[in-house]
């Protein structure tokens, strides 16, 4: 698909797709994963490294969800502006 930053409908469609991805990511039970990897399941050097990596992974995925939602908002705002200006306005995503 050729991206057209002046096409409000395309921008909204992209925003919806990003929100779906964020939602799918946010629905992962990473808390449960971390809990299952704690000392009540296993312990030792390898388990500790796994636990530490899962903690980091949980944090990364949370921030990734936030980033995706922010991107979706920008796309939606860009679509609104494009609709008002007849497709001439443009919002540059940071």
């Amino acid at each position, binding site marked *: 698909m050729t*991206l057209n930053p002046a096409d409000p409908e395309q921008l909204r469609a*992209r925003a919806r*797709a*990003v929100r*779906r*991805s964020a939602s*799918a*990511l946010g*629905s*992962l*039970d*990473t808390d*449960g*994963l971390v809990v*299952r*990897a704690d*000392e*009540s*399941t*296993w*312990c*030792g*050097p*390898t*388990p*500790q*490294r*796994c636990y530490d*990596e*899962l903690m980091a*992974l949980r944090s*990364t*995925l949370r921030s*990734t969800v936030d*980033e*995706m939602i922010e*991107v979706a908002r*920008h*796309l939606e705002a860009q679509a609104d502006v494009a609709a008002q200006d007849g497709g001439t306005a443009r919002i540059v*995503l940071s």
Partner: protein
Amino acid sequence: MGFLGYDSERLLWLSTAMRRTADKLAAIHNDDPAISASMVRVRSAERALSATWLPVIGRMLSCDVLGTEYAPVHLDGTDVRTAALFMLQGYGWQVATDPLGQVGDGTIRVTGAEARAIGALLSRSDISELIDTPEELAWLRQRLLVIGADPKLAADLAANLDTTWVLAVLADEHLDAAATGDRTRATQLAEVIAACATAVREHETAAWVDELIELDPYAAALALRGLDLHGEELAAACDRILARWRNPPDGGGWPDADVGPTYTADLLFPLLIADPDAATAFLQRAAAHPDIVFQTTNDGVLVRELLLVGTDPAHVSARAAGDIMVPTLEWLRNNVAWFHNDMIGGGFDARELLGELAAPWLLYFGPRVEDWGWSITEGEEILQFVVDDGRALDDLLAAMEQWRIELLVRPLVDADGRIEAGWATDMAGLFILFDEVITKEVTDDARAARIWVDLLASAVTTVGTSFGDGAIGLTVSATVPFVVSQVQDLLTDAGILPPDADLVAELAHAETAQRKATTAIFAIVALAAQLVDSGDLPEDALDGLDLGNVSGGCEARVVHDRLQAFIDGLRDRCSATVYNAFVALLSTFLSPDAINDVC
């Protein structure tokens, strides 16, 4: 190679959850360039789960003995570093080798389970087998320090630790190590014991301290070092431990008393020395049974430091010092003769310590003896006992500088010319005391003479200094030869001393009465000479001193009267301050009591 442990069922749940998460991550697709960086992280997370951790878990759950770095093992519980895994193994966990770490890897977080496991394993196993290597001891100490710094972990440890028993066994191990000369192991064990006590102290009741003190005293002392007690609390604990050490309940002996060379007191005294308030409080308690100070160690240096810190005038009142010194010295006087080399406490001569101990409190053996509840005779007798030891006498004399400074900072005559009566009394008493006690001990003429000259110089210097404006400007070191020289000339001129006589030797050899008279002349003449020199007295002032023919009657009384007449003659020629200084000085060296004693 280290070890890991796992609960197979729970690990399977983890594997299932991980697989589910990885699959969901894999199902997320979005090629929008606006989230390309986010999607890179999603793919990375998916790979971490599916390509790294799921295979690891899979290898563990496959129970493949060969061909895997996670080979199943069975721990035998002889290494404290595997305490947690050993306990979990007992609960049905699987244990396997772990290529990612070493046994005793200090970077592995301490878990509550591990804290509980350490407590339980130490409490039920053969401790000597658990900690038979330096690595195990170092690991245990490090773990205990981490546990002690975390209240929750400390509670976990305390919940499973039979503290008193464990500390007792560790103390036995320490004693064995010390007895066999393994200083490294002894040090490590001492650190472990202290760390253990530190870790559980907040979670044990106050009654536990009482229980601890009822342990083998050596174990109690080692543990006490981890309890961070101070002041009265520390003093009370040390007193109880050492009293118990001296009096074993079954009449036998304690292990450390049999093997040495480090005894319970050697562990406790440094704690007290580092805490002056505790040292004083301990010595006050020990006054009821001074054997816990003098017969619990062979380390005379420790005893000396304890006594000096605990009776240091810088922080101990005269009353508190008396509470310690009186019973302690009386006990020593009655018991020290029974000390011998093959008993604990026989490794040093307690009498040698007493000179330094007595020096700052010398006034309380004489002029202020009643403050300590002694009679004058008792004070003299005790001081006689102290100086009976050559080393103690040397130390006492060497420490006189401290006493001299005390006198120097206490003016004899204040700015208004009033005499500080207490000073004169103290000085007079001190001279009498020296006359009665110390000179009996000093057989070396030169040293005896030196004592007297130093004392005289101190007195004269103090009087000079008491004028306050620095007009006299005396210093002890400058005064001694100057005063001796001047007095020598004057006494020779007066016919009291034969020509070419050695004044110092004369003083040393003089009978008591003559010495009192001579020292009084010495002091008054020295002061007058100084005042003439400084312009506070007219140049002809000494002309009024008639020292001719003093042999009619008791020499001390005649000299006193002559000196009094000389001073009275100066009354209208000098200030009230100067006059009162002379009166005080005469009273110091020839008080009415002193005259009555010798005449």
